[in-house]
């Protein structure tokens, strides 16, 4: 929070042109950290938005509220611990207030806190880890411990440093087009990894996913196979880049896009950030095609072959790459699925109605599971309880 206050201070100085050069450097560093920061910065400088805010700020009745506060807190009559205004909230809130006796007002539900904090011992947020399977079937576990492991497979140098797996082809060994050699990167639940391909493209693989890819690009196309979720930044090199997920192919020349194609999801979504992409869905002898432009999303349902296009804010669908969860009006059922992939836990709904609560929001993916579930409990009347290593949702 302190950092946010400082950033706000810097942006204000920027607006009033009283920012020093050191402060400007700090501000630029923060802005360049993520697309979200760019958005926050631009919004803060947008005079149209400011005019709207001005109207909003002026609409609030400060004098009335101060009058009430003065009466409640500073008048000479006896000050009650539970001012009248609070009474109109449900009794459920009053009870924790009495127990907490003013020490930590924000953790309003002590019982939930204790029950949920037990979960943090067993259920942790994900980390960068994956397994690499070479063309001969050998597998290597990639995590913090394996620093700078260098392998050499069929003329390509593979290195793993700081959670980045890189492939570098030895130029002189590549002659003409040949059958590509494939490697496979597999992330478990609670894992994720980043990969540099031999053509300069970068892939971020999310939890519980599998990516099969050529170690060098010797064929006339660059062809990869995905199950799960990945974000791609494809380098232009003149060869088409194709990602196949079951019967769906996504073709690009050079661009940035996200594919979410988990086998246990009802739909597969391809979201374009930049560039141009073609989505093909193959069914028997037919192929259905749609072209995506930036901020368009192609949605393919499992039981249909049609491709539905939607307008989205593409940044929302790649925020996982920056370590955030983003929920866009999703059901609790969908939210739990996403959380379970990252935190690696089993869950079960004992109340079917709870599945259909809708949520929108953003969370940091390193939040403790107890905080996340606490937030969900606060805004609905579901409860989460750990029973036999399964989270039961009532």
């Amino acid at each position, binding site marked *: *929070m302190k950092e946010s206050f400082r950033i706000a201070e810097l942006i204000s100085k920027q607006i009033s042109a009283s920012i020093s050069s050191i402060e400007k450097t700090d501000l630029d560093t923060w802005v360049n950290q993520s697309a979200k920061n760019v958005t926050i910065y631009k919004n803060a400088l947008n005079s149209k938005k*400011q005019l709207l805010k001005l109207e909003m700020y002026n609409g609030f009745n400060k004098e009335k*509220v101060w009058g009430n506060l003065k009466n409640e807190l500073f008048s000479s009559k006896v000050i009650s611990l539970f001012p009248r205004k609070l009474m109109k*909230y449900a009794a459920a809130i009053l009870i924790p207030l009495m127990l907490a006796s003013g020490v930590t007002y924000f953790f309003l539900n002590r019982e939930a806190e204790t029950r949920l904090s037990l979960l943090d011992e067993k259920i942790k947020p994900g980390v960068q880890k994956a397994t690499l399977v070479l063309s001969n079937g050998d597998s290597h576990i990639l995590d913090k411990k394996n620093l700078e492991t260098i392998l050499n497979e069929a003329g390509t140098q593979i290195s793993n440093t700081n959670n980045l797996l890189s492939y570098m082809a030895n130029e002189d060994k590549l002659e003409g087009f040949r059958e590509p050699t494939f490697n496979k990167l597999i992330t478990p639940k609670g894992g994720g990894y980043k990969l540099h391909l031999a053509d300069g493209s970068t892939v971020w693989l999310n939890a519980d996913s599998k990516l099969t890819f050529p170690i060098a690009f010797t064929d006339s196309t660059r062809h990869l196979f995905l199950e799960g979720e990945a974000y791609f930044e494809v380098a232009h090199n003149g060869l088409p880049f194709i990602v196949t997920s079951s019967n769906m192919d996504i073709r690009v020349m050079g661009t940035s896009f996200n594919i979410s194609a988990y086998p246990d999801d009802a739909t597969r979504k391809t979201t374009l950030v930049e560039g141009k992409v073609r989505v093909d869905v193959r069914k028997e002898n037919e192929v259905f095609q749609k072209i995506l432009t930036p901020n368009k999303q192609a949605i393919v349902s499992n039981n249909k072959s049609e491709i539905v296009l939607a307008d989205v804010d593409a940044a929302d669908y790649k925020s996982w790459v920056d370590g955030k969860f983003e929920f866009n009006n999703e059901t609790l059922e969908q939210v739990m699925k996403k959380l379970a992939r990252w935190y690696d836990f089993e869950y079960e709904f004992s109340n079917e109605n709870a599945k259909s609560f809708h949520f929108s929001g953003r969370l940091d993916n390193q939040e403790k599971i107890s905080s996340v579930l606490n937030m969900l409990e*606060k805004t609905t009347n579901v409860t989460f309880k750990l029973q036999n290593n399964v989270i039961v949702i009532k």
Partner: protein
Amino acid sequence: MTENSISITEKGFQELFDLHFNALCAFGSKFVESQVIEDIIQDVFISFWQNRKEFTNSNDAKSYLYKSVRNKCLNFIRDEIVRKKRLQNSIVFTADIEEFVIEEEVFNQLYQEIKNLPNASQQVMLLALNGLKNEEIASELNISLNTVKTQKKIAYAKIKKRLGGIIFSILLSF
């Protein structure tokens, strides 16, 4: 607000309220409708006063205020659902309020500079503080160039009056 006192005084509390009331209301409006928000902010400040011993600097105080607004808003939403048994179409929940905090804090600084001006000058001065030239302000607000200049004159006159008062009192004390 003095930072070396053990906890905030009545006067400091009033200043804190004065400087942050509108920003906190705007922040809370992202979670609940505006009719309810003033009551929630009132409760937040009551809670703050009752816990004032915990806060020894303005960052801690502001931090508490923003988080407290969010939590009380979320509780309100939950109780609405329990009481009225209606499911919201979409519940906005977020542990990540930092971006909203930045947004309000930045605007609040601008607002503090112009809030004492009459409404018409406020808009003109807001845009002027953003570095817009008179022609740009005129086109943005759909008013004439003359009106812009007049409003600016009114604004500066008000500011000068305040400054004049300060200079006057300094003169008096020596």
